[in-house]
């Protein structure tokens, strides 16, 4: 029931967020319409951070309690996090071409996000490659804790190194430095994407439990 409600809420939220981003939000003065990609790119990276933070907490929880339910949350969250990190990288590249003149550059922010993506793909591969589920979960939990160390590196890379990527406009201390209509559209999409994340994780975790029960 919860999954169904979350699913409908997520669908309504994402569609409404898309309409706001593409049709309602004003055209940004300096970047033009290409700035509309930010309504997708920034909430995606937020969900990726959230997903991997959940993997981190759940991994610690699993190593401590050895509960299969906690492991299923970590597994589901990592899978969804990889999807959203992929969207972040792809939409960033598409935005970068008309704005920076290049699809990709090896600056600190982009490189650390690419490393984050590869580490969590590795996390999922470890799970898929190890036949013993308990051992796979244990190894993945260790990897889930180690890989989370890259999250602050990604976020603060724009402050610690000289990068082409601009510093955050919203995920930072202090007030957001953008006009109200743009800010509210962005916040709406943050909420919609977070609900979509919750929907995917609850559905995936439920399916993992059903798979485990079927193979037990």
């Amino acid at each position, binding site marked *: 029931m919860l999954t169904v409600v979350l699913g409908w809420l997520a669908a309504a939220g994402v569609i409404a967020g898309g309409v706001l981003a593409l049709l309602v939000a004003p055209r940004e003065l300096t970047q033009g319409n290409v700035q509309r990609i930010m309504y997708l790119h920034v909430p995606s990276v937020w969900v990726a951070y959230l997903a991997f933070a959940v993997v981190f907490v759940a991994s610690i929880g699993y190593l401590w309690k050895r509960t299969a339910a906690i492991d299923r949350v970590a597994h589901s969250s990592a899978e969804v996090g990889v999807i959203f990190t992929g969207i972040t990288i792809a939409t960033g590249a598409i935005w970068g071409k008309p704005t920076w003149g290049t699809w990709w550059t090896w600056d600190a922010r982009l490189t650390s996000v690419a490393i984050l993506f590869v580490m969590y793909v590795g996390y999922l591969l470890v799970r898929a490659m190890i036949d013993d589920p308990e051992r796979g979960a244990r190894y993945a939990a260790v990897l889930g804790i180690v890989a989370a160390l890259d999250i602050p590196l990604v976020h603060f890379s724009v402050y610690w190194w000289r990068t082409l990527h601009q510093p955050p406009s919203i995920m930072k201390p202090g007030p957001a430095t953008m006009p109200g209509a743009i800010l509210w559209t962005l916040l709406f999409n943050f909420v919609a994407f977070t609900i979509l994340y919750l929907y995917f994780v609850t*559905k995936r975790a439920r399916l993992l439990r059903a798979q485990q029960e079927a193979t037990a």
Partner: protein
Amino acid sequence: MTADHWGFVLAAYGVAVVALGGYWRRLVHLERTLKAPALRATGSPRPARRPVSS
């Protein structure tokens, strides 16, 4: 005046729709597979092999 770049905007949103829609479809497919335990347990019936005529 900056260029509009609507093509880039639509490409970005298209990528997201394909990725999220693809993942959702995968979950739905997995759910359907798990809801058919009888088929999984016995395997789908194979059609009888037709004798090769010489």
